[in-house]
């Protein structure tokens, strides 16, 4: 019982199929199961709905087209035409995070985006990719990124370390923001839910709270996916155009 009331129990990683490759634990866990579920759902939405290639879209096709246009517009607004090659990546990141967050809103599910390991791996991947692209595109000029234009040279010793720290903290802020939001929301829901039965008739009050917070959580689930994606776009823009 104590286990069931622990608001953090929902974040427990449970091994479903133990797999070990060369001493590395690659077990198929509940987290992996929901990642697979996300990929299946996104692929179903994006591939099956457009199968008929209707000129006038149906509901599902419209949804897929809206997702496509939403991310395409976000990318062209922040990066411009040069952002085109990164569109599949940005789109995949958005859908992967969004479906991770949204599937997590269903009762008894697991939210893989509430794990720092996952969000940090994604953020680190974005960070490394963006840095590699920037160096490949601009060579040594990339390091001028750390000294903004129009800054007096006397300020350089102060500004350059600040800029470097701010650059290096990107993956941290990107991953912690998503992980903390998802974890806090789900913990809050669980805590509120824990109050319902012990309060008896007055359990109605936390139920109303649950309804409100669930609505808020749905908003946050979308918003955090959006923020993660638009920050990725902004980093790509910095890499492609520098300042």
């Amino acid at each position, binding site marked *: 019982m104590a286990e069931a009331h622990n608001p*953090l129990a929902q*974040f*427990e*990683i449970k*091994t479903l199929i133990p*797999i070990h490759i060369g001493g*590395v*634990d*690659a*077990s*198929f*866990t509940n*987290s*992996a199961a929901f*990642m*697979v579920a*996300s*990929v299946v759902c*996104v*692929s179903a939405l*994006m*591939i099956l709905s*457009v199968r008929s*290639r*209707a*000129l006038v*879209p149906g509901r599902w*096709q419209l949804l*897929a*087209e809206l997702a*496509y*246009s939403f991310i395409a517009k976000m990318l062209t607004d922040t990066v411009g035409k040069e952002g085109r090659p990164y*569109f*599949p*990546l940005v*789109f*995949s990141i958005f*859908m*992967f995070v969004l479906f991770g967050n949204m599937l997590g809103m269903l009762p008894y599910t697991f939210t*893989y985006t*509430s*794990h*720092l*390991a*996952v969000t940090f*791996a*994604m953020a680190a991947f974005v960070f490394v990719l963006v840095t590699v692209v920037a160096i490949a595109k601009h060579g040594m000029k990339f390091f001028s990124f750390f000294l903004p234009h129009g800054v007096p040279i006397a300020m350089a010793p102060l500004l350059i370390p600040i800029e470097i720290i701010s650059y290096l903290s990107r993956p941290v802020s990107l991953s912690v923001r998503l*992980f903390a939001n998802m*974890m806090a929301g789900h913990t809050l829901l669980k805590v509120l839910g824990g109050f319902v039965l012990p309060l008896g008739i007055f359990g109605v009050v936390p139920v109303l709270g649950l309804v409100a917070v669930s609505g808020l959580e749905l908003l946050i689930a979308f918003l955090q996916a959006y923020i993660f994606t638009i920050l990725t776009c902004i980093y790509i823009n910095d890499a492609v155009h520098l300042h």
Partner: protein
Amino acid sequence: MPQFNIATFPPQIIWLAITFVVLYILMARVALPRIGNVLSERQEKIDDNLEAAEQLRTQAKADADAYSSELAKAREAARLAIAEATLEVSADAAQKQEALGQRLTAQIKSAEAEIDKAKANARTSIRDAAIGVAQAATQRLIGTAPAEPTTAAAVDRALQARS
């Protein structure tokens, strides 16, 4: 907190990599090009239709212009025809009126001449009658009839005084 259990990191990251690569390939190779095609085909279709509509609109405007210019031409022709007809009719009427007037004048003149003739005739017969009456009356009164010329002169004088 389960999030900081390092032992769970490798399986999560490994499966993240696997699933994300699968998703990326599916999106990049299948889903996104397909949706992109559908969207661009629709955009082309819309553009085509808009262009066709624009053409039809221009055509319709040209037709409407042609129609109104034709209408204006027809109206002008009709106006000219009416003016001509009016002119013709009034000329005809004037001619007829003049002919009528002339005929009437001629009739009036001949009637006047007739009247004059009748007047003269009447005068002559009155004179003859007066002469006859004067001679007969004088015969009765004094037993002798005055000579013809004398009576005639007297009657003429009397008539002269009357008229």
